[in-house]
Every structure is written in C-alpha cells, then in structure tokens.
C-alpha cells in the first residue's frame, strides 16, 4: 500500500488555513449521532475527548488508571513551548517550526511541524482561560524560560509541575463534559483490541480491570492516545503502567508502526542504585538553565565534589559545544555523558553518573538579590542564603524530590545524574489528519510518530499532545465523520466484535494456563536489559542482530514459562502486566529491526558505524531521508517508506558548537 501523508498543497504557512477553510463539516444534529472512542486520558486524550464532547460528539473515554487525572502527562516537569514571542527576543512561528525540524534531525514532516508551531499560541490561551496557573512576572503577565536546543525564551511553565497543571486543566474540561453527558468515562479499563468492520475501525474490546470481564464498545472512529513505549526498556522515566498495548494492538490490526527505533534518552535523571530499581526519575531539563554539568579531569578522582577545585573540573558540554553549552539538545547531552563515563571519568559509587552543579547559579542569583534589595552585606553567607532562595523558587520541588530519593541535599552538593529512557518519538504512522492507514483509526500525542523526527526538543511533548487534542483532531475528525453520517451505530453483537472478543479471551486464558516458573517482572527486566545494552544510547549491527535473536528466544520462553498468579475475573495486576510485557516482547524486536535497517545516525538513534571524526552523529540523507513505516504480517514486518521533502528547513549537519 502506498503511503499518502495527504499534506495539503500550497505554501507551508498556508496549508493548515487552507485545509480548515475547505474541510468537510458535520452539522450539530449529526454530531450527536456519531460516536468516538478515545483511548487514554493524558494531554492528547483528555483534550481530544473534552473538545469532541464540546462539539457534540458522543465520546467514550478509557483509561487504565483509577482516574483520568493520573495519566502520565501529569509527571511532565519543565514546560510547554509556544511561539508567542512575549519576550520580544526574536521568536516566531517559523523559528519554532525550524528549530523543531532541526532538533528532530530532519526526520519529521514539515507540514505537520509547521501546523504544530502555528497552533502553539492557541494552546497557551486555552490553558490560561481554563485557570491553569502558569508562572507570572511581577507585572502580572506570563513568564518564560529557555530550554535545551533553543536560543529564545518560549517555554511557559508552572514551577516544575507544568504537566500536572496542564493535565488538570484538560481533566477539568473532560469532567465538565462527563457532567454534561457528552463523555462517558471508563476508568480502570484497558483496551485489548480494535474491532474492524469492512476495513474500518468500528470499536474496541476492553477489559474491566476490576471485574476482569471483557466488554465491547462501538465507535464510528477510534482515537489512540495511549502515550509512548519507553517501558520496553523496563527502566525508564515512564509511569509503571505506561505501555504499548493499545498502539500495538492497532498495529497488529493493520496500522503501520513508524520509526520505532527513535527513542529519547533524557540526559538528566537520577542514576540507578541497584537491582531493586523499579523506575527512574527525571530531573527536569530546565535545571540545565542554571546547573553546570561536569566530571573530574582526573580518572579515579577520590575527593568529594565540593573539594575539587575549578582547575580539576571538566565542564565538558561547555568545552565541546561553546555556543549552546549546557543547553545542547537532549540526544547530544546524553551521548556526551555516556562518553565521559565510558572513558572512566564517571562519579558516584557506580561511576555511571556526572555532576549537575548549582553552586555558580546560587552565587550569581545571590549577588543580584543583594543589589536588588539594596543590602550592604555582601558576605558569602548572605549571598548563598539569598541565592538558594531564588533557586528554591525556581526548582524547589525538584530539589526536594532529589533529596527524598538520594538522601543528599543538592543546595549543598552537586546532583548526580545520568541519562535514562524518557520518550519515544516513533509511534503509529499517521497522515496529516492524524489518521493511521486504517480508516477511522487515529493516533494522537506521543502515540503517533509525526512531529519530533528522530529527537524531541524539551517542552515540545506537552505542546504536541495538546495541539493534537485541542486544535487538530476537532477539524480532521470532522472530515472523516462527514462521511459517516449515514452509518448507524453497529450493535456489538456483530460477528466482528464476537471474533475479536474471542481472540482476546483465548490469549488471556493462554497466559493464565502456562503456569510456569518465572514471574512477568523477571521477563520484563530481561527484555529491558537487552534493549538498553543493544538498542539504547549507541547501537551497532552486531549488537542489534544479536538482540533480535535474544528477544525471539526470550519471547518463546515467556510463552512457555511465565507464571501469572490469581484468577481472570478479579482485580489482577499481574495478569494486566503479563499482557503488556507480551506486547513489549514483540515491539522490542521491531525496534531492533528498525534500528538495524537505519544505517545512519540521526537524533536519538546513534549507529556507531555512522559518526564524524569528532564522534558526532552522522546522518545519511541520500539513503535514509524517509519515514520507516512497518506493516505487521503473521511472519514478518514489511517496510514501507514515506520519503521526506524539505521545502523551507533544508537539511544540514546539526551543529551546536
């Protein structure tokens, strides 16, 4: 099947307006007869469900958590980008677009990214109107900060809890629609299959996680807003429940999976302490605004960080990338940390960490405060005290979190950080309308692949999730729904529902019947280890080839020896997890296959065979300027290519030097 991204004709900055001017509309009376299923209640899912409810569609919203407010968007810390240019520092829609394409290492689609930049400002307007308490200046207007990969201040934030505040805004809009009867909420429900009738998505099979019963739901369209698949690595900054299941089931029902190997390893996370570790915690990238990253210049340095003098410290990001310094994009910062640690300069007990130091920022802010307050006292104590207050106001909750986890006070000693899996740029292939290649099946937010190319810039995930849900899908879904007004709701007694339910039932029974000796958790850990070592920050042909065989063997072992306790018709988190890990065991292989196929380095995908003499990622535009979209078949995944064309953002070697 040929991949048609359906990018509207015309100039880049006119495409979206032209599209909106000519897209089919659905009358209010008809909207009331049309049903939409939304999977997931993060920023993309909650904003889509709320907005479609406002428009008058009948929406069914699903999440596996006990409340839609707990979706993992809640944990996003740093901020959300928007091309408002409130700081008068030269920002524009074009610049946000351009930097996003460049940051993504020229592996995203220009049309989608331009639209993202265009609607970014509307998102901020909408959130403020909902009562989202963004940070403000003394004059009462909104505050901004800068973020990695950019030279302007376009990031809006709410302390270190931006995701929480944005999600609670979307959640409140969603709950309002629930109270009005436009949205029906199904919490503690997990989607376990897509139901297709005559080639189009017409519903889902979901499992009620409290009773264990399978339930059937019809929809004229189904929206997958289930987030990313970072938990394939076992350890990641994702929530424990984050999973690929909804996206993977869609893939197995025909939706192409695009660029699965593009994963983002975030540079600033709290390092692993031991085998008991269940997840990793991010320290917001915003900390790199004020924190300086360094390692000792001497191998085997024994002194404590605060006792190491300046001349014995290597601020390696400032040294290697003077133009951007500590604010280089995430992929660059992560690889640089790995490089130093692999070379033997790491710190902490495991030597797999680098310092993130706030001492200079505390001093700098302290001095400013002394002048601002007209104090005569310029003693080191006063400066330090006032400086710490400023830092606390900016990052207080992050510092507290760090101290709770590590038992160390980052106001006094530098943080220890190391990269960790954080976000997945790959996802379900979608066209300009966010529809997968299966009619009526859409993917929004992190679950799709379209906007971040091979690397996502900081503060852009929140922007994309809300852009898709609030401002894109309400238009593009209408274009499809206009053709559905003659389709009555299909009863869930239809054979397609019955067959799908039976297949889901069989799989659950199979999982329960194995009664092997190894826990689901152990299989997940073993998969994660393979993925991290061979498909993590650096990849090569040999490792990837091995990984594919190892995953195949592990998957076989899983289906012969997994042990799932408890019963089917009860709350059974082990069973829920078994289904998710089974899907990760299939996805992992596809990720390695995709990484093996892409014999170039781009963004988060670093192939050791493809680097410059200075160790920077080396793209190969001649051969790989395409989206790799994989089609599932029983025995193999088939590669389809969507060639990328760049009209305005001409590909160049990324340089942050």
């Amino acid at each position: 099947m040929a991949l048609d991204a359906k990018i509207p004709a015309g100039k880049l900055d006119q495409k979206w307006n032209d599209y909106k001017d000519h897209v089919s509309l659905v009358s209010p009376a008809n909207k009331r007869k049309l049903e939409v299923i939304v999977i997931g209640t993060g920023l993309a899912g909650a904003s889509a469900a709320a907005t479609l409810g406002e428009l008058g569609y009948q929406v069914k919203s699903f999440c596996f958590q006990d409340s839609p407010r707990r979706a993992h968007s809640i944990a996003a810390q740093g901020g959300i980008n928007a091309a408002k240019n409130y700081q008068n520092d030269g920002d524009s829609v074009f610049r946000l677009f351009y930097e996003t394409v460049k940051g993504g290492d020229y592996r995203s689609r220009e049309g989608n990214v331009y639209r993202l930049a265009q609607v970014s400002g509307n998102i901020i307007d909408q959130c403020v109107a909902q009562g989202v308490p963004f940070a403000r200046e003394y004059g009462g207007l909104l505050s901004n900060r800068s973020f990695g990969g950019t030279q302007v201040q376009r990031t809006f934030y709410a302390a270190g809890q931006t995701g929480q505040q944005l999600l609670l805004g979307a959640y409140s809009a969603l709950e309002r629609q629930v109270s009005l009867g436009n949205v029906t909420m199904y919490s503690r429900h997990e989607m376990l299959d897509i139901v297709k009738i005559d080639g189009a998505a017409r519903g889902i099979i979901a499992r009620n996680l409290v009773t264990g019963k399978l339930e059937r739901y019809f929809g004229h369209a189904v929206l997958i807003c289930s987030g990313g698949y970072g938990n394939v690595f076992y350890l990641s900054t994702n929530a424990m429940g984050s999973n690929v299941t909804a996206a993977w089931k869609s893939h197995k029902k025909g939706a192409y999976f695009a660029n699965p190997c593009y994963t983002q390893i975030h540079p600033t996370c709290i390092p692993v302490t031991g085998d008991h570790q269940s997840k990793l915690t991010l320290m917001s990238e915003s900390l790199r605004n004020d924190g300086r990253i360094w390692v000792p210049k001497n191998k085997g340095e024994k002194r404590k960080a605060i006792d190491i003098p300046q001349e014995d410290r290597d601020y390696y990001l400032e040294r290697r990338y003077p133009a951007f310094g500590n604010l280089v994009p995430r992929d660059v910062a992560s690889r640089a940390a790995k490089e130093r640690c692999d070379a033997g300069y790491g710190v902490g007990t495991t030597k797999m960490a680098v310092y993130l130091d706030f001492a200079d920022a505390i001093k700098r802010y302290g001095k400013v405060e002394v002048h601002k307050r007209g104090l005569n006292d310029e003693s080191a104590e006063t400066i330090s005290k006032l400086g710490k207050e400023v830092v606390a106001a900016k990052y207080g909750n992050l510092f507290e979190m760090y101290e709770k986890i590590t038992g160390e006070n980052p106001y006094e000693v530098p943080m220890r950080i190391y990269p960790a899996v954080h976000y997945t740029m790959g996802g379900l292939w979608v066209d300009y309308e966010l529809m997968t290649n299966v009619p009526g099946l859409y993917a929004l937010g992190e679950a799709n692949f379209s906007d971040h190319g091979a690397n996502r810039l900081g503060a852009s995930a929140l922007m994309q999730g809300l852009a898709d849900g609030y401002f894109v899908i309400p238009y593009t879904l209408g274009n499809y729904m206009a053709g559905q007004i003659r389709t009555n709701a299909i009863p869930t007694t239809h054979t397609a529902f019955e067959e799908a339910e039976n297949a889901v039932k069989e799989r659950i029974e199979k999982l329960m019947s194995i009664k092997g000796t190894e826990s689901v958790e152990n299989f997940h850990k073993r998969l994660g280890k393979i993925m991290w070592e061979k498909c993590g920050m650096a990849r090569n042909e040999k490792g990837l080839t091995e990984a594919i065989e190892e995953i195949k063997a592990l998957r076989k072992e899983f289906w012969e020896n997994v042990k799932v306790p408890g019963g089917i018709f009860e709350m059974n988190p082990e069973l829920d997890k078994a289904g998710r890990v089974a899907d990760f065991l299939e996805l992992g292989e596809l990720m390695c296959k995709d990484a093996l196929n892409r014999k170039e380095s781009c963004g988060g995908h670093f192939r050791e065979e493809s680097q410059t003499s200075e160790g920077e990622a080396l793209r190969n535009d001649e051969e790989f300027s395409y989206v790799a979209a994989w089609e599932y078949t029983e025995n193999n995944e088939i590669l389809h290519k969507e060639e990328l064309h760049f009209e305005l953002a001409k590909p160049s070697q990324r340089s942050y030097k």
Partner: protein
Amino acid sequence: MEHYNMNLTLKVWRQKDENSRGRFETYEVKDISSEMSFLEMFDVLNERLVQENKEPIVFDHDCREGICGACSMYVDGRAHGPWQKNTVCQLHMRAYKDGDTIVVEPWRSASFPVVKDLMVDRKAFDRIIQAGGFVSVNTGNAPDANVIAIDKAKSDEAFDAAACIGCGACVAACPNGSAMLFVSAKVSQLALLPQGDPERRTRVMNMVQQMDKEGFGNCGNIYNCEAECPKGISVKNIARMNREFLGASLSSEV
C-alpha cells in the same frame, strides 16, 4: 549517603474485594536495602509471593514520582507514612531500621470503598470535580493569554492550591473522613483567579453539595489533613471555601 540492609516484619491488610471481610497478614522481609523505595520493598515481597504461588498484594501506584496521586497506603497510622510532605511512593527505606514492624492499611473512608487489598475506589473525587471543578470555557473561546494580568501573589497562591494531586490522604487522615481540603483546594484555585470568577458562586455550592452527597464528613478543625498532605496544601483553603460558600449562600436568589 551510607546505606544498609534490614529485616522487617510487615502487617498488611488483605481483602479479596469490596464485599469480602479483610484481615491483617504478617510477612517477614529480609535484606531490604535502605536505598529502596517503600513500594520497591513491596515489589520484592510480591515477587516472593508469586514464587510461593500466593497472590501478590494489590496496591495503586503509577508514576512513583509523587505526582500522579495513585499511591495510597496508610502506614503505621499515617497517610503516606512517616515523612512530611511526601507520598508513599517517595518514602525510602532509610526511614526504617533493622527489626522494625510496619503496619500497612488502605485509606479508611466509607466514601473510598476497598477494591482489593490496599487499593481503594476514589471516583467520589472525580464526581466532585464534575460538579463544578472547572471553568466553563470551550476550546477555541480563549482570548490572548496576556490580555488579563494577574497579581503574581494571587497567581502563586492559586498555584499552591492547584498542586493538589487528588490522592485522598486528607480524607484518610481525618477522623471525620472529611474531604474539605481536597474540595477547597480546587475552589480556592479558581476563586483566586479572574478566570474562575463568573462561576464562583455556583461552583462552590455545587461542589460542596456533591461532597456531602458522597458521604464525606465535616471539618472539625483538627488539621490532620494539612499535616499529612503530600503537597502541603494549606487549611487556609478550607477557610476560604467556607467564606466562598457563605457568600454564595447569602447572595443566591431565594
């Protein structure tokens, strides 16, 4: 930070489902590292229970970063355990020493029925938000974000109230099972901001009405809620909600 290993005795509430009788079960756990989180200790115990062909202990958890509000354990008589301004997922085992006995229960509230073991149903909170915890603004209605300047102090105060994670610790900690800290945090956030002003009267009336309907108790000014709130939400919000409620009651048309 020095770390050490410890052996502990856990007394954990086990309950098959909402309608079954629950009971405490005792478990010995060994070689627990002080670097583990409290929930990682439960992971270790659950892994062992699976190996022993027993049912693992069910509890709510997701982000393990103290922000999603899912985790909800009542540890030694305190919501979220011994640390101040903390969720139980962020509690680390260095809070304990070798030989300690720890008692773990679910949130206790008639309005939060037990789903299984340590997991409870908090849909009552969602229904309270449905009653009015929002600004009625459809997507696309919004004016430019900087059209309205908002006093930074007020905005910061609204943010402090908005930091609530909806975990329900306030209810669990309150002898009356009152949800007033949760409800007042949302009422305050929106009452402090100009965006929330047009609906402030109906909002507080409807949310309080729903809170009562859900069976939550009244505030007795004991302030356990503030003491146990992982986000440090202030009881001043309750006073503000009472003022808002009184004002709305007096000014509403009869």
